[in-house]
């Protein structure tokens, strides 16, 4: 009941409907109307930019950083050096970035973890207020997967029934760190269904996917872009889409509403930021470069390969701030409900 109350109060604040409204293909791209070239203000940038990436080069964040850096360079001719500073679930990269000069030459790539970290501890930077979002370039949703050749259960309903029969012995591979999006969503699902399922935390993708492929766990919680190769090869199949409506690419997979689950979904999103104190004309140029680069063919192809076009991935500065603010509010309410020490 509490969950219902909670979801009702935050429902209006979420961007779920907005997100789904952009489900159309990217033939007409969000920033097509922006000019193809903009004069550099006072010669800025006169040298290469540095993009601080708080994760390693091979993961989802590393890949989006590379794709966006390439697209900006193709568009503007300005080189971007990527400086990967992994560790501490993004904290190390954020700390390193905050120590760089506010001159516009350093930009930060970050994901929704920065928002949830601020929600739990307000002394951590608020990406919407302590930084200026240049663009949000990836927004995606979550799904639950099983092996395609699984015989013990074949769809969401039979999976729920099977898990309940295991009396807490069933397992799901996850990134179930304290306060993570995955753990929060799993709490919503287990509360709503009455399932008891053991979450096995894998912080790296390959062992996580291998655990399902090898039968070490019974299910997997993940975003579709990260397991696309397993979906395309027929190894995995989704049994639940954690969205209120079914995206066209997963028309046969039940959504939250189909499964009778009434809560607001949380999203994984990635974007690019710059210091708050950067001169306004430099911020304006960077906003143009990163937002326009979003619609470069190379970046759109990249997003499409990652299933990042199933819901609208683009947010400009104002849209990113709204998305982040809503997300922080959502997480904070959930954390309080979960009894976590919200500072």
């Amino acid at each position, binding site marked *: 009941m509490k969950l219902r109350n909670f979801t009702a109060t935050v429902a209006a604040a979420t961007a779920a409907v907005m997100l789904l409204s952009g489900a159309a293909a990217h033939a007409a791209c969000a920033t097509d109307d922006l000019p193809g070239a903009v004069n550099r203000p006072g010669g800025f940038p006169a040298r290469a930019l540095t993009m601080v990436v708080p994760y*390693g*080069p*091979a*993961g989802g964040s590393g*890949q989006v950083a*590379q794709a966006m850096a*390439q697209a900006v360079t193709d568009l503007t001719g300005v080189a971007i050096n990527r*400086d*990967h*500073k*992994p*560790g*501490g*679930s993004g*904290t*190390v990269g954020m*700390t*390193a970035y905050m120590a760089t000069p506010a001159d516009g030459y350093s930009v930060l790539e970050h994901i929704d973890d920065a928002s949830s970290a601020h929600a739990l501890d307000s002394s951590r930077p608020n990406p919407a207020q302590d930084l200026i979002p240049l663009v949000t370039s990836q927004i995606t949703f979550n799904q639950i997967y099983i092996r395609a050749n699984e015989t013990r259960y074949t769809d969401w309903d039979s999976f729920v029934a099977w898990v309940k029969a295991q009396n*807490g*012995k069933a*397992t799901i591979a996850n990134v*179930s*760190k*304290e*306060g*993570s999006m995955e753990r929060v969503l799993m709490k919503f699902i287990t509360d709503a269904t009455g399932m008891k399922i*053991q*979450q*096995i*935390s*894998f*912080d*790296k993708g*390959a*062992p996580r*996917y*291998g*655990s399902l*492929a*090898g*039968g*070490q*766990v019974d299910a997997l919680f993940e975003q579709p872009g990260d397991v*696309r*190769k*397993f979906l*395309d*090869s027929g*190894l995995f199949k989704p049994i639940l889409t954690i969205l209120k409506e079914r995206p066209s690419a997963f028309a046969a997979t039940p959504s939250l509403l189909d499964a009778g689950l009434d809560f607001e979904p949380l999203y994984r999103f990635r974007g690019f930021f710059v210091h708050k104190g950067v001169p306004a004309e430099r911020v304006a140029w960077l906003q143009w470069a990163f937002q326009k680069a979003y619609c470069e063919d190379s970046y759109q192809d990249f997003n499409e*390969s990652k299933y990042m076009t199933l819901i609208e991935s683009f947010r400009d500065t104002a849209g990113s701030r709204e998305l982040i603010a809503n997300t922080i509010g959502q997480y904070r309410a959930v954390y309080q409900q979960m009894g976590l020490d919200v500072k």
Partner: protein
Amino acid sequence: METFSNFIGGTVALFSDPVGVLVFLGGVIGGMLFGAIPGVSMLTLAAILLPFTAHLSAEHGIMLFSVIYCTGVYGGAITAILFNIPGAPENAPTAFDGYPMTQNGRAGKAVGAAVMCSAIGGCLSAVVMMAATAPIAAWAISAFGPPEIFALVFFGLAVAASVGAKTFWKGWLSILAGLTIAVVGLDPVGGIARYDFNMPYLLAGIHFIPTILGFFAVSEIFIQAEKKARGVYRAPKMSVDFPTLAELVAHKIAIIRSIFIGFFCGILPGIGATLAAFMGYNEAVRWSRNRREFGRGKMEGVIASETANNAATGAAMIPLLALGLPGGALTAMMVGVFQMHDMEPGPLVFLNSADLVWVVFAAMFFANLSILLIGYLETRTIINLLRVPFQFLAPLILLLATVGAYAVRGLTVDIIAMFVAGVVGFFLRRSGYSVAGIVLGLILGKIGEQTFAQAMQMLHFEWSGFIGRPIALVLLIAGFITLFASIYRAFFKKSAGGAGPA
């Protein structure tokens, strides 16, 4: 027979394409050079090249990375042997005996053993990879989950306690020190901060590469500087004598054992060549009748380590190609190369791009084979670095090590960690503790903690769950037997060998 004809087809396709040959040679030489230079690694080269692979064909791009992987793993052995600076973590155990061999005037033998055994391990690994990629990958991921990997780590730690320390207690204290360092930072399962002292950079934990550079390279420079100051410094003797065939044949058991170990570790997602090298070395120590000779310049140590780490290269391609599961950082970057060409590694690659797969397989085989020739020529030249006077070489090594420590994650804390490890290592090595044990505790501790927590979650926090998993049970029993045997040797059979090698 079909495998052989596919291999011939891949070989012909590789060597009949001039651009392919150029890419192959570039990868072989680049991998060796970047692997050999401390401070950079094959990962550095791969990261630099990654965007450019978009301009290559898929075949050339993926082949380039696989060749760099093979030769890069070997390249780091050179500096490990000559200067006690492992070019990469998987070469760290090579330094345990390789560097003492250099000090004893047997650098040529050590480098030669590394060249030949890297080639042997890599080539055989490539052959198995060609023959049985799909079934092995499927077996590995179904048979080895977190409980089995934890049990393997426990077994490794039990063996490692006898590596390099003067006494039983010093061996275990070294391992425990490494395990303690491993818990700094966020815990790998719950994300809880530990020992960060409110310093955000410590949340990233202490990385093992700066620690290796500190314990091995920096502390060695301090030790040699002290000898120089006291006037007892002896420059390493030059030697370009390669090991004879008879010497290699005499170590055939160690080679075969390391091939199995390397291959086995390589196919486990997220484990790879580093654990392979340490496990290969540990097992060589464990099965040796002359344990005390390890760490003092025993060729078998170099052979075991270098065979195992190269045997892991072909094996690591198995989960990548068959299932799309990268085993380490370089194979993860290879996924990026696949994706740049609108491909995904996994079962469909064998169906949709069989030609590509066989060119890559052939290239990996010949890359490992080329280690023999190019490694021989390289050794004849690079070994002359030993002629450089210490006062010029030491600052250069310190500079390269500093760059190497920083290059891992771009964090200043890694440079600090390296110098702290250097100072600590300087004193520990004088007092009979094992810096190898500390490094091994650090590397295995991170893997072990994570897989232990995952195993307990999977087993619903019931220890008895291990009994129901035969492979895990066997490895745990082997670990306990090793542990009790080392206690027995230390306390009841001191005259027959003590606690292990110095």
